[in-house]
């Protein structure tokens, strides 16, 4: 399999960042960037990246299974992540997550039927002083009220 020319160029550069013979180090960035482009870590991607880095598919699988941001199943086009960890919880993060569940009709790691939106309750994302926070894909939204959440979600559903 091949990736977009931009990503291929990025991969080609990436492997030069690490000492000779230790190109395996590029695996996690490649998985992340690959997932960003393809939408999930597919079997084909695991085989391909394994082949490029001299790893068996099982060795890639070991890594994929470990990291919570790597998904073998596709998430929605917009992956809504609501933090409910302590700092956010103290400022209504759990209620915000419940609200999102009801609003979207989705539970933890579920994807809408049209594949557009997915929801995940996540651990601390480093926005504690601006809680409660959510991330849509990689974009942070800080101090999110339920009304603001509604606006954000409605924007995504369009």
């Amino acid at each position: 399999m091949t990736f977009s020319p931009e990503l291929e160029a990025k991969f080609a550069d990436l492997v030069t960042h690490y000492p000779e013979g230790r190109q395996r180090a590029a695996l996690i960035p490649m998985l992340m960037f690959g997932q960003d482009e393809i939408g999930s870590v597919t079997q084909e991607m695991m085989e391909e990246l394994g082949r490029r880095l001299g790893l068996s598919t099982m060795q890639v699988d070991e890594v994929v299974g470990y990291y919570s941001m790597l998904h073998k199943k596709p998430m929605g086009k917009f992956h809504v992540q609501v933090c409910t960890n302590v700092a956010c919880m103290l400022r209504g993060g759990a209620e915000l997550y419940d609200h999102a569940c009801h609003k979207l009709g989705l539970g933890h790691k579920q994807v809408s039927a049209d594949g557009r939106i997915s929801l995940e309750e996540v651990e601390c994302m480093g926005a504690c002083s601006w809680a409660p926070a959510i991330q849509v894909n990689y974009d942070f939204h800080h101090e999110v009220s339920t009304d603001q959440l509604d606006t954000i979600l409605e924007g995504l559903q369009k």
Partner: protein
Amino acid sequence: MALVNVTINGVSVQAENGALLIEVAKQNGIEIPAFCYYEGMSLQAACRMCLVEVEKAPKLMAGCTLPVAEGMVVRTESEPVVKARKTTLEFLLSNHPLDCPVCDKGGECELQDMTFKYGVGESRFTEAKQHVPEKQWSPVVFYDAPRCILCYRCVRVCNEGMGVGALGVSNRGVYSEIIPSHGDHLECDECGSCIDICPVGSLTSGIYRYKTRPWEMEHVGTVCTHCSNGCKTTLGVRNNEIVRGNNRDRSGINGEFLCVKGRYAFDFNHHPERLQTPLIRNAEGVLEEASWSRALKLVAEKFKALAGPKFGVIGSTRTTNEENYLLQKFARTTLGTANIDHHRSGDVVTLVDSLSGKTGQLGTVEEVYTAKAVLVVATDLSQQHPLLANKVRANFRHHKAAVYAVTPGPVREDKIARKFLRAAEGDSIAAVESLRDELAKAGDLVILFGDSIQGEKVRQLVAFGESLGIPVKYVCLVDYANSRGAMDMGVLPDLGPGYHATAPGLNLQQMLEATDLSALWVVGANPLKGGKTLASKDAFVVVQDLFRTETAERADVVLPAGSAYEKNGTVTNVCGQVQRIKKGIETVGSKADLAIIGLLARGMGVSLGAVDADTIFAEIAATVPGYSQLPMPIILTGGAAQTHPVNGRVPASTVPGNISSARDTLFTTGSLTRYSKILNEVLEKPGALYS
């Protein structure tokens, strides 16, 4: 190395500086319990069972990763340590299914034993346990994730021990589980080491599952009957049936190592096609069942009538030394023929000749593990000689041995080799020559070579080795459990026991090609395999075997023989190491080859004296050079002792083409494995040498 003084539980002991505490304790008779620590494998410090109290340390320390140092004061049974163990076991059991009554491991489970010894009797866990369904990864490997304690022994033995790396771990935290090489199934050596090494019943064997409980079996220590490496195997026998093969006591030259054949391929023994009764070709030319007395009488009469220089005898690479010795003696004396040979798969004869006058230059299995350098020539060691390959890997892992491979195609040793060269079999010696400078600096060297190195090439290789100026040992690789013993015992057309010259007779090939053989007696061999024919149309053919082989189909009389698991005796492995095999089960209908020879002699009115393994071995020890100095206490207690049967010129010339290995893979060995149900099921890559 410098010694340091360490106090363990109030007792001062001395230990090598930097040695691991858990090992130091063990050497001094103190057990520090552990699950993940496993001697000879990489350290994990994961199970936390080995936590001990070390003075001046702020918290309990893991004994498995703690190097001892001068003045260290350790307590392994103090109150905090005892409590830590209890709580670790409590944590472990919190998500363990506790289905011991139906678990294969019950009775020999390390978690059971530890809980019994160190745990608490009651559980405070009242939450729901996590359940994941059991998975089957291959015909021989099943994985039950809930039972798994994640000690990673299986992952390590597969990766480090076997060099296969077919097991990994995926997911995180409490959801972590072991995963197989190919998503939902395993493609590997199917050696079952992972199952054996599993301290709990998480990995179970497709062969053994739900068959018995450990305490209901008799455990018989004997030697695997398949390849020439001679692994000791402990058979689990229940109701006269072998249900398991392993070597958990780590005795013998192989320690706990066994390959797929050693661990599972005993099942040929119970194959439905196993011959249970003699067969005699009737007037219609069909083999029909007959009684032993009728068959023996017929054969004895024929032998008596046909004895003489036109009689041919083919011995075996998997019968015992005693059987081969008696066979050649019987052939040369009673039958009056020099036509005796066996399927030769390596040129040991030229090797011992090349080394005449020198001592101690035949390598042992142990030396493959301890030599500073190992050179593998013209063989796919991991496929054909799994134990030796395992020792090479262990030597690399433990001693950073310099490994060199000169082979016609890719081999597993490439991965650990300091240098590997691709050379067609005809060019091996030249390629080896190119390594001269490096090898000369190796310190000491063991050279393992395959069947294509024969005759003059063996002499060239030895000359090369001897010119390096370092100690060099040699292992001439041969195929089967007693290939080496057959040669030592003189099942050769021109050499008697101990490679003494005898009046020359026909070799195997010549016997098949001769048109005037009066009789051919084939004991435990299948020379007509692969469509070969016997040129002497009228020869009276007697075959002793376990199955109706291609050769048996040509026989006039077929006598059902006992397997290696059904008799006592000794075998000599590829390195010339003599080991005792022990009868594990009673034969039904068949007889040991030794007994058959004895009965035939009696039928012919010839006295061979007492025909039992011990008596014959005593005769071998008295008459065969090299076998007289064997340390019997070692052999009798299940050990291996090397023989060097000759130390002078061997007056024989190697006939080109008469030596060839069957080129078996990990999943085959001659006629026996064809009848192993399990090997046929797991056959991963048929005939895949050098791939």
